[in-house]
């Protein structure tokens, strides 16, 4: 899941090397924290959060066959 998010984020930003995804696992949830270079924030959030919403949808779809809920935090 983290690799999927990282791949998408790296394809969107100007500084792919600054993209980092860390994961936190609890019994019910998988939380992915995405961090990018400050000037790339808009490239992973988008107007009215449109890009962030699309990224969350795709990650959630990929996690359907796991028993965990996936959260994506952009930090």
């Amino acid at each position, binding site marked *: 899941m983290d*690799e*999927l998010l990282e*791949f*998408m984020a790296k*394809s*969107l930003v100007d500084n792919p090397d600054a993209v980092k995804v860390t994961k936190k696992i609890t019994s019910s949830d998988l939380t992915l924290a995405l961090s990018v270079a400050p000037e790339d924030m808009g490239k992973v959030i988008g107007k009215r959060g*449109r*890009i962030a919403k699309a990224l969350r949808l795709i990650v959630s779809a*990929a996690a359907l066959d796991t028993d965990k809920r996936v959260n994506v935090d952009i930090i």
Partner: protein
Amino acid sequence: MREATGTGKSVEEAIEAALVELNINREDADITIVELPSKGLLGILPGKDAVVHIKERFEPALFASEWLEHLMLKMRNNARVGTKFQDGRIELSITGNNMGVLIGRHGQTLDALQYITTLAVNRKTPDFVPVHVDAGGYREKRRQIIERNALAAKQKVISTGRHITLEPMTPAERRLVHMVLGDDPEVSTYSVGEEPARRVVIDLKGE
């Protein structure tokens, strides 16, 4: 589009230097020779190096299909991606067993895939190229259903004289209804409500 300038004692060396700088293969580059090398004069006048300029060749359709295939791998979805470049847009069509997951409720996951793919492809292109993504023929099926429903609703509006509000649809789907009934002499269409519950209304044409 990435570019680089290379210099060397020969044209070959200059090209090689530029290719190494961009880390690409020769078949992926457009090469312009800027200056031919010249030997100095009897070691008195200094010689000049060859100078070439290369541009990375970029094929959006190829990039798009490889990118989406890679994404499918990362989603652990065993799917295949077909590519067509038509009418100035890239059409990617995903086929495989697990298409429902990629389509999502009301096609919203498919729309998300299309949106992110469009952004990834166009980050690298100088001119905007529209990218369409379909999975398991979903968009074609939806198109047929929406056209059929729109025409059925039109008949009902004409026979009852009352307007009909269709189910909520995405912007692209609403546009399709407006287009199908756009030239109709008897009914007109407009949209009401807010996303994501915006709906098309079909009504008799006013006097």
